[in-house]
């Protein structure tokens, strides 16, 4: 195998796949990248067995072949190379030579036969989905997935594909984020997929918004493909909890609040809130939202914010960290909060959002014990 590639193209390819390479692994070949020659250049692939990423970059191929190269060392070398074409060649199964200007490196690789094969995903029946829609869904929902190991299903993001729309939902049981976007072109049959957020992050990062992606399902895997790049991910087996039942339909109190002002007040209150529960008390009254926090052995704080509030006075407790996190993802200047009672779910939505997407966050309160 022998090819010449520009330093920039090599760096670009490595940057795309590097994050799929596990930092620690018991299987040595996973610390390597698979480099294969193609018609137009080379394809670089990396995997941690949960996620696999592969990307093709333009190169001048002199002799076809494939080999695996230590990922971290190759990235470190590529970063330090002088601005000159890079010649990479492999002699036999393991010995790699890299030359660039007057610099010369010899690296030991592993035979390509040791590299795990990619999941069998047939793209013939692939759905075609605008990358921008997917990015929007991911960036507004994936944050809410659980990181606790006790319920693996909640570690994933639910992706519902329907003829008219598609939806992503993520929750850790305390807060939930849900977004719908309409589907412009009629796609395939309805399906529910549960995807690790780590894979979604790669998808959001690697595919430009204007591209159209091919999405296809294998037995336990899902593949996303654009002309140059492909991401494969393991699917989490369901069923996902019936989140729809917990979304309140009878919340009869609502407040419309300036997001920046609310964020500021919550951040101030958080300073004095408990490190464990982050509990703050919100007291809604017509025209005024009062904040208060009291933490034993630490102190107290109060704040106020004029708001538009409709409903009977309400005192409700929240984990300020959860509330602040949701506010970060809301796209509008004003937000709408709805409530039923102090121990029932509250919803948070963008107010006055002129977008075809529908976005809803749900937050379970903290019990106020005096």
């Amino acid at each position, binding site marked *: 195998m022998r090819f010449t590639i520009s330093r920039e193209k090599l760096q670009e390819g490595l940057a795309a796949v590097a994050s799929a390479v596990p930092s620690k692994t018991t299987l040595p070949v996973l610390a390597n990248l698979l480099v294969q020659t193609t018609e137009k250049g080379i394809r670089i692939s990396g995997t941690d067995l949960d996620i696999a990423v592969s990307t093709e970059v333009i190169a001048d191929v002199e002799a076809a072949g494939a080999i695996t190269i230590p990922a971290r060392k190759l990235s470190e070398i590529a970063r330090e190379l002088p601005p000159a074409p890079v010649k990479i060649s492999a002699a036999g199964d393991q010995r790699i030579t890299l030359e660039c200007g007057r610099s010369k490196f010899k690296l030991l690789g592993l035979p390509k036969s040791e590299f795990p094969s990619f999941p069998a995903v047939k793209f013939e029946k692939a759905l075609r989905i605008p990358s921008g829609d997917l990015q929007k869904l991911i960036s507004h929902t994936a944050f809410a997935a659980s990181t*606790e*190991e*006790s*319920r693996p299903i909640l570690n994933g993001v639910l992706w519902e594909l329907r003829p008219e729309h598609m939806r992503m939902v993520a*929750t850790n*049981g*305390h807060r*939930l984020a849900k977004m719908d976007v309409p589907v412009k072109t009629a796609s395939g049959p309805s399906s529910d997929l549960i995807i690790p957020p780590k894979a979604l992050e790669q998808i959001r990062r690697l595919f430009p918004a204007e591209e159209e992606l091919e999405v296809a399902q294998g037995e336990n895997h899902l593949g996303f493909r654009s002309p140059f790049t492909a991401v494969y991910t393991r699917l989490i087996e369901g069923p996902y*909890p019936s*989140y729809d039942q*917990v979304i309140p339909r009878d919340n009869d109190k609502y407040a419309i609040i300036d997001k920046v002002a609310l964020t500021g007040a919550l951040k101030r209150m958080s300073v004095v809130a*408990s490190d*464990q*529960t982050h*509990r703050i008390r919100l007291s809604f009254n017509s025209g005024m939202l009062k904040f208060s926090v009291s933490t034993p052995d630490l102190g107290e704080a109060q704040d106020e914010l004029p708001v538009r509030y409709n409903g009977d006075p309400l005192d409700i*407790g929240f*984990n300020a960290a959860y509330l602040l996190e949701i506010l970060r993802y809301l796209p509008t200047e004003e937000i709408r909060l709805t409530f039923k009672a102090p*121990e029932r*779910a509250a919803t948070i939505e963008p107010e006055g959002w002129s977008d075809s997407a529908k976005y809803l966050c*749900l937050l*379970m*309160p*903290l*019990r106020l*014990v005096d």
Partner: protein
Amino acid sequence: MPRILLADADAFFVAVARSVDPEGAGKSALLIVGGRPGSRGVVCSASYETRAFGVRSAMSIAQALRLCPDAMCVPVPRQACSDASRAIRRVLERFTPVVEGASIDEWYLDLGGTEALYHHESLDVTARKIREAVKTETGLSLSIGGGSNKLIAKLAAERAKPSRSPAAGGVWIVDEGSEPAFMNDVTLAEIPGIGPKLQERLRGVGLVTVRETLAHEMPTLERWVGPKTAAWLHGRVRGMSATAVEYRDRSRQISREETFGKDIADASKLVSELRYLAAKAAGDLRAAGLAARTITVKLRTNDFETHSAGRTLPDPVESDRGVAEPAVALLEKLRAKHRAPARLVGVSLSNLTSYRVTEQLTMFEAPAVEGVVPERERDRDLSRAVDRVREKFGDDAIRTGPPRRVPIGEKGAKKPRSS
């Protein structure tokens, strides 16, 4: 220089047993605390006089009585012991705010920064005042060791014991700078953390005393016991210990166990015993305002083998059912491997947190894990309601069915032993 004391109550259980029964136990020189003769308990503590016969704690009562047939055996006066322990602690807290309870009868005191308060008197003088105050107010004797860290204080307290040095008057302080000379006379077995296994290994390379160990350099020790143990041992034999005295009054584990009068072979009977103990432990947990994430079940079979199995739950539990269900599942796991009749069963709760974390309301009820339905809000409500009833009408006023041994309301229900 840091001023650390370890106050250790002398023959604590024996002294308390004597104080609650001055006419019986109080008059018996040969006294064993742990259980009545014929019971299947173990020795919790024994008077100095019986120790001369070879009686040691953790020995079965039957064996202790074979060694010392004339001894009087009494059960552990649990309530009196915890009352006495609290009374001692209250006195100690008058001398310094930093009191760390190491066990029911041992406390570390940090007197750092109190020099001016005690008019720059020596630590020895202050220790004697503390000892005097505890004796006057509780009637119990302490042995107090002191030095520049917890390790030195602990070893010095052993030296202060009346059985060891009758002339010390119950106080032994290691002055600053004299730690090396003090350590030279210590045997490795005395150092906390050097258990029987490590002692055996060290004896194998000819090391029994600190003096012998000091003669060897690190590389030699590393070759003998591995780098990690060597580094630790190297510091310990030089009297070094970096752990600070922390104010602590909270138990790190809550447990209940019971040695049965007759071995239990019947699985359902054993399960109901465990449920009872689990509910008791859960009650202790709630009374302390805590919740537990780790549940461990102990099973001792009639061949004296002790087995245990534990599980850490995703969320802390505090209700009777929340504790009992995982405990029963663990017992079944143990019984699958060890089918011999059971002599003892116990449950212990650890990984304790204040139960305020359950204030966060959740959307979904957690699904069953390994066949155990996790604790629900209604379980917690139920247990709290039961607690309120018991507070008002007594422990036996309300029970979960089916009835265990003694019908509700009848006196004489055998109390399980807590530990």
